[in-house]
């Protein structure tokens, strides 16, 4: 049994233990308007819906593509599946469940189902309470460090998933795979957006 099947089975077991679906949960199920348009390889449907809604709220479509347009959510699920060890995978599932449980407690529903106002309040609360990443030198952290927590960690992961995508890296940011020369001082207006690499 692979990891995802195991999680699904245990989720089913928990559901069974809680008894038949209540009227309220059935109503909530009906209220779910966002159907997943992709099949996660690690996350459950509900967990994947959380990631997709987090990505969409953090990086919505504007004149430039949104996080969902470049499938940042799909990549994050793949990353959980292929780069996290079992302990890390357990932790991320627990973190998603806790995030949603907190949303339910404060706003009455899981994150994906919240109104724009409630999502904004939720993000603002986490921004205010999440420690910051340390500064880095040559890829290594320097100065004071404390764990940034799930919210800021996921935010950073979403940024990576978005900005490392081909659409953003090649077509939105300034893409120059073989610069050929180093010019130390040129007008920003000659370049525009940041270099993608």
């Amino acid at each position, binding site marked *: 049994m692979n990891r995802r099947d195991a999680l699904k089975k245990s989720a089913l077991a928990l559901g069974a233990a809680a008894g038949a679906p209540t009227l309220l949960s059935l109503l909530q199920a009906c209220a779910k308007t966002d159907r997943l348009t992709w099949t996660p390889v690690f996350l459950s449907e509900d967990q994947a819906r959380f990631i997709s809604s987090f990505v969409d709220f953090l990086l919505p479509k504007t004149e*430039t593509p949104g996080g969902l347009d470049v499938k940042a959510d799909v990549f994050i699920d793949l990353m959980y599946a292929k*780069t996290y060890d079992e302990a890390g995978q357990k932790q991320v599932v627990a973190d998603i469940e806790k995030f949603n449980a907190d949303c339910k407690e404060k706003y009455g529903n899981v994150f994906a189902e919240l109104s724009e106002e409630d999502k904004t309040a939720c993000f603002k609360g986490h921004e205010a309470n999440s420690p910051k990443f340390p500064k880095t030198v040559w890829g*290594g952290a320097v100065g004071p460090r404390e764990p940034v927590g799930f919210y800021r960690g996921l935010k950073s992961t979403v940024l990576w998933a978005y900005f490392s995508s081909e659409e953003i890296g090649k077509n939105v940011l300034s893409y120059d795979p073989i610069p050929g020369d180093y010019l130390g*001082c040129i007008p*920003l207006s000659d370049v525009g957006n940041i270099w993608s*690499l």
Partner: protein
Amino acid sequence: MANFNIDADKNLTYDAIVIGSGISGGWAAKELCEAGLKTLVLERGRIVEHVVDYPTMTLDPWEHELRGGLTPEQKAKHPKGGRSGFIGAMNEHFHANDLENPYTEVKPFMWVRAHQMGGRSLLWGKQTYRWSDLDFEANAKDGHGVDWPIRYKDIEPWYTHVEKFAGISGEALGLPQLPDSHFLPPMELNCVEKHVKARIEKEFNGRNMIIGRVAHLTEPLNGRGKCQFRNRCDRGCPYGAYFSSNAVTLPAANATGNLTIRPFSIVQSVVYDEQKGKASGVRIIDAETGEDIVYKAKIVFVNASTLSTTQILLNSTSNRFPNGLGNDSGELGHNLMDHTYRVGAMGTVEGFEDQYYKGRRPNGIYIPRYVNLKDGPQSDKFVRGFGFQGGGGRSGWGAGGNQEDFGGNFKDGLMKPGPWEFFITGFSECLPYHENQVYLNKDVLDKWGQPTLSIDAEWKANELALNDQARKDAKEMLERAGLKDIMEFDNKHEMGFGIHEMGTARMGRDPKTSVLNGNNQVHGCENVFVTDGACMTSSSCVNPSLTYMALSARAANHAVSELKKMNL
């Protein structure tokens, strides 16, 4: 490039054997082959042919399934080297497997190893600086360690020799403590670096800030292309623009027709002939078949990288050398040094918001040592000194993780460059302490049943005092240069993080207190040479690789000359 001759087994006898194919071994092989010696290079890992075996050299992030992320299986292979923060999916194949090659940390020590043809020459930082008599005379003057058996004048022609072939870019300054190399044109400083340079040099008499001197071509040389500013060096460079054994020395050695490389060769020991009173060859274990083979040669160069070289010598016991080859002094394994790492300061620079740069420069700035110079201010808190590396640039989307913002405007704002940031980080000299040591551990064996190393070394009061001053000086320089939001830092890394392991088989004038003589020959077994970092008698505060190159070329030419005189 022609394929390398790897068919070693037909012939068990060579003129010379070189153990290891990294920076120093590559140079030894080139010089020996060019002098006409049939040379066998024994490489612990696989063959890595220039360009052909650089599978990730052109990959953009989205062309890799995990965009550079490592799988748990990959991470599990690097519990020690992974602490460096340098191992990612694009270079993981160039880092040794820690599980197959264990070592024991009596005190914490981070050891980065690269077990393939080219070794760490594929991964190094390319900072290349000459040492000076400030360094070669330091031990004699302040009494720490033993005196170097050479001075700057002895090595100067060999610096010239290797620089002209390796290709070093940089700016000549005429500083006595940091002699100029034969330079290709320097890389450019960016606008903020130029600004900070001007301010520091105005505010502080006797301090200089220059572009790093690096083994990257800024003009084509000997068929190698110039740097294209992709900054993907640790994947292997398709242009051969930076110095590596794979792109530079081994092809030159191969072109003579005198080179044989034998991959998958785990060196067990250097074989000592009791009758002849010298080494007769090298015993290896084939990493794939387990076969035990002895290769014979007139001379042996041990260039396995500092600690592995010493491991081989310690494991090379005989009646004459019961405690390891060349260990009459008892100093083999002792006096391990490194450079301190990640101590300094950073801040932001205002006023250049409409300026940017083009190209990913694999280089930064350098501030040469200015403390405890012959004619400068002397510290009463420490001996020796430190230099700084660093650089400036504009922050990118990565800064978004900390911004208390989200949504469409946030996203589009991250597409524009953020503030200019600038940092400097000190590299302090480490004194040679007898008690900082490695020794054989026969309780922990590697995959091939060989004893491994225990490493027992730590920073002491002088290094901590140097670091303290480097941090304070870094902050003061950035303050007086007008930076904002300045943060000082000292990561207090254990030894090994500098990835500049030096010592453990030091050169010296007296066989009673050193392992090697002034020509890098093992005392008492003069047809064995050690020219990698193990030979270093002190550590200076500047990067050591250029000095390994020069010492290797010098020793190889001495070996050829002695062979001709029938002295070996």
